[in-house]
């Protein structure tokens, strides 16, 4: 049995609230439902973004969608499909790997696709090296998962070497 969304008593009433053409299901206990119906005015609005933030608008063709979903980031291994289902990206490089898919989405969320605001005063140096680290960490994760300890040890050394290289250049 579902619990009341407001207190934790069992929900006995299931209200479908339609606002601006969008239906919201509310599960409430009797007390809370009574209060809700008498007091609908103070209910928090739910924005469309919160209910389905990463719907791909304008991509109606299932084949095309299927193709989009197959795109994989070479550094962290996440697929665009995985991103869409969990709503979280896998690494900073995904913004490049999924650029074609993400730009319309950003346009949709923010109404803009060009950053305007603070930037790190020390411009980040060759991001290639950073992405290489993410890639090595992903390979390390897989190696550990497959109990390939020889590979894992080699990857750890490589990560450490690269890390030290970065720290060295940062303190210059």
């Amino acid at each position, binding site marked *: 049995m579902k619990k009341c*969304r*407001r*207190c*934790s008593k069992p929900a006995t009433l299931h209200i479908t609230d339609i606002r601006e053409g969008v239906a919201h299901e509310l599960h409430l206990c009797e007390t809370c439902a009574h209060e809700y119906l008498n007091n609908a*005015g*103070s209910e*928090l*609005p739910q*924005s469309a*973004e*919160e209910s389905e*933030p*990463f719907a791909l608008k304008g991509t109606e063709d299932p084949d095309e969608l299927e193709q989009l979903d197959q795109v994989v980031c070479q*550094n*962290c*291994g*996440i697929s665009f499909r995985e991103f869409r289902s*969990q*709503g*979280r*990206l*896998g*690494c*900073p490089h995904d*913004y*490049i790997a999924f650029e074609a898919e*993400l730009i319309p*989405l*950003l346009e949709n*969320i*923010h*109404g*803009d*696709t*060009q*950053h*305007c*605001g*603070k*930037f*790190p*005063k*020390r411009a*980040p*140096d060759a*991001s290639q*090296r*950073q992405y290489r*680290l*993410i890639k090595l*960490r*992903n390979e390390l*994760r897989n190696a*550990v998962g497959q109990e390939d300890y020889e590979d894992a040890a080699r990857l750890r050394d490589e990560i450490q070497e690269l*890390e030290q290289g*970065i720290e060295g250049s*940062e303190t210059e």
Partner: protein
Amino acid sequence: MDFDALTGTSGEWLRGTGPDADIVVSSRVRLARNLAQFPFLSRADDSVKSELESLLRSKVEGLNLGSRLNYVNVNTLESLDRQFLVERQLISPEHAESHGSRGVGISEGENVSLMINEEDHLRIQVLRSGLALDECWEEINRIDDSLEQEVTYAFSERLGYLTACPTNVGTGIRVSVMLHLPALVLTKEIQKVFQALQKISLAVRGLYGERSQAMGDFYQISNQVTLGKSEEKLIATLKDVVPNIVSYERRVRNALVEENRQSLHDQISRAYGILQNAQTISSEETMHLLSSVRMGINLGLIDDLEIPTVNELFIHTQPAHLQKLRHEHLESADRNIARATFLRQRLSNRDTERN
């Protein structure tokens, strides 16, 4: 960090000082940051998470905040203590509920908190009492600048600070104010405020963020857009709109007093009376009644209680705070009894209680 000692105190941001603090309870700015050489947390295994935590912890502990910083290992904390930090607004509900290596650095006075391994590698938050967004921004900007000397943030010229969720990319900033709007709720005028805010892309949330319902007539108003507008611009948008809501709430309060002072006074006094005398009381009812009392103080209808005390009661009557105070795990029914006892002690015979 001694949590038991904290049960008797509250963060500086609850002091009820600062401009418009009768309605603007607090101002908050948070920044989302990630390190360039690590995957985001959804692709981070345990060893990457612990590497991230120890790296960021050392940088956070090295910060010069002008006061002592306490670091709390959230991963090894009991769930009651995690909830306790959520109630004090020092970590997010998501941070409390997630898994693996994670922690939070908290400044003395609880104005600054730095969450490690939340949705992003680092979430910096600065809280202030009253309407003080510029002060929040100055402080958080300074903290961000000094961290940036130590680490390489994931950043692109086109998209700005890169975040795990595309809804935060760009500035990674969320600017918010917590407003107490009992009169607008009472008269249902609040709906108009929601509509006006949605039109200018500002979000409205409840006391504890994204997933919470509005409790005690508290509403958090914040920016939704993070890309394409500067931090200053986003702060200015909020600074423009907040005074309008504040004066709307004041206007409606005054109208309520003028139209029917006696019935309003009656309602507020009854709320106060219940809080002083109840033998068992739910969190929901407490929030609701405290909200009336808070407005009553601001309208001069209650004169033997201070705003900071009421602000504190909103937090101290939450479930984890009550249980910490009693040093025991309490089921809901027992909590309601403990809450009533606590309220009676804090609100009745206040002069003798203080000694």
